[in-house]
């Protein structure tokens, strides 16, 4: 019995256990300290729906051995380009969301391919370089957002008429377009069915892909590249495919996030966006070379749960908002835990 417990703890991971326990404690504590539990549950589910696809974007690259995609901002930028262009071209309402997806796709493909070429030339140093590629591109785009000829009055600074604003409201465009679609209300808990359906669709597509011939090739490339090469799999091409998939998913992910959040955030906002997604998937049980859909779902739920519940519960208990600090410690601690585990495979 003890052995079973010990082996369960070892496989589940002690930090993960701590985080799950902490979240459970928060949920139990919430009604006791007078926090509006149904509203909080709604918040958690909402935030889950916004972030899940960004976390899903981690999966392809982990499978193909490129490590955790710290370069998520590249995909996010494609999404931002799609969103801003869709608005600039005059689309409104749900159509603007569809067009945003359509327009970001070629950007995601292009940027993803360039990123993939780069990663293929630097096998072994992906994560560090990805981080800085992400940073450089965000700061480059900061300059571009100021210079590119956008004209829509909703989006540009009022006075000069030149240069995009830092945050652009999506009211009248695609604010909550997915969340409100087929929204189900159970008592006081409201579920953003549309967004969850999109995530479910993409997650299922990913799962199915990973069981196709190309998908299994991808997993092989990640777990044993020498074997994969010997089996005739084109390692570089598969890695490139995984990078493009990840970038495209990130683009969709940020669009879904925006529709939930209600704003397009430009300039420095995407700067650190990779870290929450990375730490979410790690909290869910993934490692640097292994990630499944279950990890995505579990991890996003735990991460967003902590982010949502901690401030409200803590505030009611000790009347201080320590949530920011706790979030930083928990999420980065999780990433550290993953980085310090001896990886099962070596290259």
């Amino acid at each position, binding site marked *: 019995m003890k052995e079973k417990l010990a082996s369960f703890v070892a496989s589940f991971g002690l930090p993960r256990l701590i985080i799950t326990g902490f979240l459970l404690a928060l949920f139990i504590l919430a009604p006791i300290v007078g926090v509006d539990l149904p509203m909080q549950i709604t918040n958690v589910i909402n935030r889950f729906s916004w972030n899940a696809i960004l976390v899903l974007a981690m999966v392809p690259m982990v499978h193909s051995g490129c490590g955790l995609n710290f370069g998520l901002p590249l995909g996010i930028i494609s999404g931002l380009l799609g969103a801003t262009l869709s608005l600039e071209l005059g689309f409104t309402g749900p159509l603007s969301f569809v067009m945003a997806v359509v327009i970001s796709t070629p950007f995601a493909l292009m940027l993803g391919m360039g990123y993939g070429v780069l990663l293929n030339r630097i096998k072994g*140093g992906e994560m560090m370089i990805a*981080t800085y590629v992400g940073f450089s591109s965000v700061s480059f785009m900061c300059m571009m957002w100021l210079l590119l000829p956008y004209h829509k009055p909703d989006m540009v600074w009022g006075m000069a008429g030149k240069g995009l604003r830092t945050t652009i409201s999506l009211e009248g465009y695609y604010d909550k377009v997915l969340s409100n679609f087929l929204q189900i209300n159970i008592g006081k808990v409201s579920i953003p069915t549309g967004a969850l359906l999109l995530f479910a669709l993409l997650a299922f597509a990913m799962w199915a892909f990973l069981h196709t011939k190309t998908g299994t090739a991808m997993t092989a490339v990640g777990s044993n590249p020498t074997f994969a090469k010997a089996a005739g799999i084109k390692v570089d091409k598969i890695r490139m495919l995984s990078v493009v998939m990840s970038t495209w998913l990130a683009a969709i992910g940020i669009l879904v996030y925006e529709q939930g959040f209600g704003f397009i955030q430009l300039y420095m906002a995407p700067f650190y966006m990779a870290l929450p997604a990375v730490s979410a998937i790690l909290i869910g049980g993934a490692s640097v070379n292994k990630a499944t859909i279950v990890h995505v779902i579990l991890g996003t739920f735990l991460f967003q749960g902590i982010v949502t519940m901690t401030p409200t519960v803590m505030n009611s208990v000790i009347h201080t908002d320590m949530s920011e600090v706790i979030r930083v410690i928990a999420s980065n601690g999780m990433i550290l835990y993953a980085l310090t585990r001896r990886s099962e495979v070596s290259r």
Partner: protein
Amino acid sequence: MSGKQNSAGKTVFSFLRNNTVPLMFILICAVCIPISGFSPSYLLNEIITRLGRNAFLILSLLIPIMAGMGLNFGMTLGAMAGEIALIFVSDWQIWGIPGVVLAMIVSIPFSVLLGWVCGKILNMAKGREMITSYIISFFINGIYQLIVLYLMGSVIPIAHGSIKLPRGYGIRNTVSLLNMRQCIDNLLAIRIEGVKIPVLTLLIIALMCILIVWFRRTKLGQDMRAVGQDIHVARDAGINVERTRIISIIISTVLAGFGMILYLQNIGNLSTYSAHSQVGMFCIAALLVGGASVDRASIGNVFLGAILFHTMFIVAPKAGAVITGDPMIGEYFRVFVSYGVITLALIMYEMKKRRQKASIGAQLALAQKDDDRHEPGIGAQPSPARKEVERHE
């Protein structure tokens, strides 16, 4: 290494390739300086001030590179230790140079503790040191905030309400260091034609350089270099690899603490929650601009990098404003260039590593072929020690 054939073109090419980043920077500066319209004496004054302010911090990065730990993004930890020390010294009302000295002394136990923790974690992530130290700096930043924003003033006694937040505990966003502002800079300053030279600060930096050169020759320094070259060979030679690596991080953290105190005494004001995060990134960028790489850095790189990087830092916003009419462009440009240069340096390092591995592989293949032909020694050069621990970053 590769490329050393007799044609001058090859030498030029390899010189260009090895020094891409500094050359690029010289180009950028050469273009932006005249556009910005700053006077030479203003530029000179600014550069000397910034050199005095930052050189010590950049010097702290040299030791981990020597020990094979890559770019120490964990220098932020030393910066935080220095800041905590300064908060205490400020609260105890110790001013001037004694205040600076006291802060340095007080920062040592914090730096040692943080450096030890950092080193231990890095030892558990061999091959991924850089990304790990990068995340460690965020993680410890959270702990720093926990201490400074919540524990100070409540659990940790802080006497003066003037540095606490209105709610009674936690330190304010900015802590004034007016009473020790530029005390070291001013002590032996020489002013020539509008340019202020902080002689004492520069002397301290020179002393540090001499110490580093001396350190390389000590047994500990030699051990570190051995560990940096090849972990397995060093281990076989009897060196305690883990301990040496941790010591290198501890030394770097302590130096970063001192450097941060020097930096802050120049500025005269402590941005409690944001000062250290910028420092790490910009110092690493400056070192790389000076021509250093992930596995090799010299004192020359430090100074060249400091001068080039800060020149760019000063002229870019103004140049950007002149070219495009928007001052923000220049600001974003210098951020972009800072990150871009780190990206470029990291990419070039990785590609060089792969080229080395490929050339070693080719040499081995050549050696095998010659062996097959039973010709002794021709072309069969012994392969240089291979880094068996590959970097997975």
